[in-house]
């Protein structure tokens, strides 16, 4: 039961334990036609995208910065996310927390989130208050005031957040260790929330430098979706964001990952009940917005074939037939600035070992690599993709998320339909080929959660009790 709303951020830890196919496939397609979506770029370099949706008198207003944890360097990991928190702490004309109070008074819902590739800020609000949202968001794009006093309080909040999401969560710790093991030098080996030691040593100056370096119109994208008139929004954008001075952006150094040369393995001890295993293979992604490739899309389809519904291969074989897992997930991400992994993760059933699980997973993959997939399996994945194009229109916010999350990694909104087509064009042979090519040991990392009792004394007592029953 999740009774606490998470506020001011959801770090995307990748959908490790709760992912469904519909979420894994970029939710794309329907009416990205020019008649509904409009784009302009302001003189200072800010890209503005407006999509009309007149079903209800509401609007989603988002600003996406092409800056995330992968732009950080060792020693200051987590600073992108810390800055996100500090963005609510006042500007030259607003006191700390006043931003939120103004949005709340107008009935708005607001938050922000940081990921490997980006940082985004948003409000959902009744449409007549959009101009005020634009004024406020443009203000903190260049007038942020970072005080040491506010920083010292907020960094404590961030550390509490880290304890909540990672340090006290076996699955959070496992994922953190997993990416840190899979990648040697690619910067997404560091957790988005940052290592605790780096958070402890961070100062307000680190946040300030980050802000100065990255928060500038040419590094941002404004997305507005809802019951709006595009020309009016462009005009409002000019009058608000248009006043933010232009700034030359430093060139980014690309930080790559050397080829892997064999399986990597680790185990992690943490308080928990069940064994969890994660297997991840280095996977290709779309590079330079060139979506005319096959492999990344074929891997997304493969994820659907493995874990699309309750009867897809991993679920049927591992959960239902062999009772090796109590739950299993597969996922791949074709798009992003970060290096990507194709991940299969599972909570194991009592008495089952990681070795049994790994062997079975490899059998399932080998079957696809050797014999391919059935036409029906392919068809179901494509139907899910097609249907999701309709369902997504029920959410104004979801549509803004789709445009922003693609644009921020360089995929233009007008290619959204083409992305869906790319997935629909994938053939059974191509799915077989990527299983053979990428899901091999030389690309593999295996992480095992070795569960520890929360009370070591109790464990001893239980073991004795169990032993005495046996005899």
């Amino acid at each position, binding site marked *: 039961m999740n009774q606490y709303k998470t506020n001011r951020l959801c770090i995307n830890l990748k959908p490790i334990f709760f992912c469904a196919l519909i979420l894994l496939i970029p939710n794309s397609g329907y009416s990205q036609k020019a008649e509904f979506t409009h784009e302009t770029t302001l003189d200072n370099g800010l890209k503005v995208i407006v999509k009309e949706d007149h079903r209800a008198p509401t609007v989603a207003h988002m600003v996406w910065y092409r800056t995330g944890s992968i732009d950080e360097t060792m020693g200051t990991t987590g600073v992108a996310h810390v800055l996100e928190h500090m963005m609510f702490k006042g500007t030259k004309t607003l006191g700390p927390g006043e931003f939120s109070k103004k949005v*709340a008074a*107008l*009935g708005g819902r607001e938050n922000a989130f940081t990921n490997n590739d980006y940082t985004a800020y948003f409000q959902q*609000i009744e449409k007549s208050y959009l101009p005020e949202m634009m004024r406020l968001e443009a203000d903190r794009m260049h007038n942020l005031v970072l005080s040491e006093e506010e920083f010292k309080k907020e960094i404590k909040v961030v550390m509490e957040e880290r304890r909540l999401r990672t340090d006290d969560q076996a699955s959070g710790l496992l994922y953190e260790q997993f990416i840190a093991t899979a990648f040697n030098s690619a910067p997404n080996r560091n957790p988005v929330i940052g290592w605790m030691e780096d958070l402890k040593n961070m100062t307000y100056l680190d946040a300030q430098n980050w802000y100065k370096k990255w928060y500038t119109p040419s590094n941002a994208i404004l997305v507005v979706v809802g019951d709006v008139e595009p020309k009016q929004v462009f005009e409002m954008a000019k009058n608000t964001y248009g006043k933010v001075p232009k700034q030359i952006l430093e060139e980014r150094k690309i930080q790559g990952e050397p080829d892997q040369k064999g399986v990597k393995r680790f185990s992690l001890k943490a308080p928990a*009940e069940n064994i969890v295993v994660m297997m991840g293979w280095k996977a290709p992604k779309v590079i330079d917005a060139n979506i005319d490739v096959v492999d990344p899309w074929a891997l997304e389809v493969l994820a659907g074939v493995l874990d*699309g519904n309750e009867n897809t291969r991993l679920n049927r074989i591992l959960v239902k037939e062999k009772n090796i897992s*109590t739950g299993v997930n597969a996922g791949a991400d074709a798009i992003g600035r970060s290096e990507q992994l194709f991940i299969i993760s599972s909570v194991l059933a009592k008495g089952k070992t990681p070795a049994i699980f790994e062997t079975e997973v490899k059998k399932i993959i080998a079957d696809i690599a050797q014999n391919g997939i059935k036409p029906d399996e392919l068809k179901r994945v494509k139907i899910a993709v097609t249907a999701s194009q*309709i369902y997504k229109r029920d959410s104004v916010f979801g549509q803004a998320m789709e445009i922003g999350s693609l644009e921020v990694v360089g995929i233009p909104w007008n290619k959204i339909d083409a992305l869906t087509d790319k997935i629909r064009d994938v053939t059974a042979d191509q799915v077989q080929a990527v299983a053979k090519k990428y899901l091999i040991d030389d690309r593999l990392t295996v992480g095992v959660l070795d569960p520890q*009792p929360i009370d070591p004394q109790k464990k001893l007592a239980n073991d004795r009790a169990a032993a005495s029953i046996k005899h």
Partner: protein
Amino acid sequence: MLINKRNLKYLCTGLVGIFMQAYVYATLPIQKIDLPSGAKLFYVEARTIPMVNIGIDFPGGFAHDPKDRIGVANFTAQLMNKGSKINGVEKNEAFIADSISELGSMVAFMPGKEMSSVRMKTLSTPEVLNPLISQASDMLAFPIFSKKILEREKAIEISGLLESQTKPEYIMAKQFKKMIYRDNPLGNEQSVNSIKAVSIDDLKKFHQTYYRADQMNVLIIGDVSREQAIEIGTKLTKNLPKTGTPKLSVPPLSPLPVQDVSQREVKIAHPSQQAHIQMGITSPQRKDPDYFPLLVGNYILGGGGFVSRLMNEIREKRGLAYSVSSYFYPAKNSGYFVAGMQTKKDQSDESVKLLKDTIQTYVNQGPNDDEVQAAKSNLINGFPLRIDSNSKLLDNLSAIAWFDLPLNTLDEWTNEVKKVTKDDIHKAFKKNLDINKMVTVVVGGQ
């Protein structure tokens, strides 16, 4: 005790006038129709997107389970899509999963405390909608409860339950509910033993008893006409038993008594880095006249995201927690209020005291004018965001039907908020939040 004067000051500026702009937003009309099966249909026409959201709610949840076999409602729901007679032919779980996937639809069976629910999402094109409704209708009426599948699902459930029992948030929530619900069946919680005791016969009996048409609310919103909606509702419920005998209502929850601190504060040790803290009390049901004063009042106390008193005292001023909030959970015959947070172990005593003091000060003194205005302004101006999608409207339909609220509830919602005064809030909180009855649970604290 600790009201931040500075923050309240800027609440005054900027807000004057905004509240006055509150507009009237016409919601889509809800139609209520009695179906031949005895079920009640709640329908909203929404034609812009070629899709339909469908829900079915009915009394029958954990609260209805036999004490020694808690889990029956849960496993009945879980097995509803794992085998049934469809068009007179027995079909297995693989067929059901794949056939729904092939329609691009979603069907979910969900157990709850007082009620169980079905939720479907589908395209409205007849080639998809018709076969889906036909299959769902058979799934609802003719499930096949397989022993082998039940045993498998029980093992999975137990594994998940044991995992939860290692987590401080679960240990806290379980203890909290125990203290709030006491022996009321609303507090029914699965245990390893109660799960193990659930049998196929239990599921069959539960299905017979509770999956019955005269108790069902069918909710439909989307791209279908009134006639189509009636047809869908009729088909979905036509093969179900029309009536039954058992008493379906859950006994009302008695209010918590005044107790000594030692009786109402529980600390449980845990090696986690953070202490998890919850405090709360029984509270009025949804139809109580205090509902709106408590709603507006709680926005000020702990419901209003970044601008609540709890957020200000605990996170903004002291950096003690990432998340702190409070809410009222109104149920059919009763409800509860809860406030909670997590904080580093060595800050737990300080945090519990702050939580208590902030709540007590608020209950004693009530809100001030600026806070009331800010809260009403937020709730009224933000109302359109509560109804701007079909899925959000379906949730609202579900609540209106379940709590038997007037069909114009959404149209009147902002007026009800407008009517709430500072005094109403103060009185409602004084009446309902007696700090001497409030229970507190800390897991993993000092």
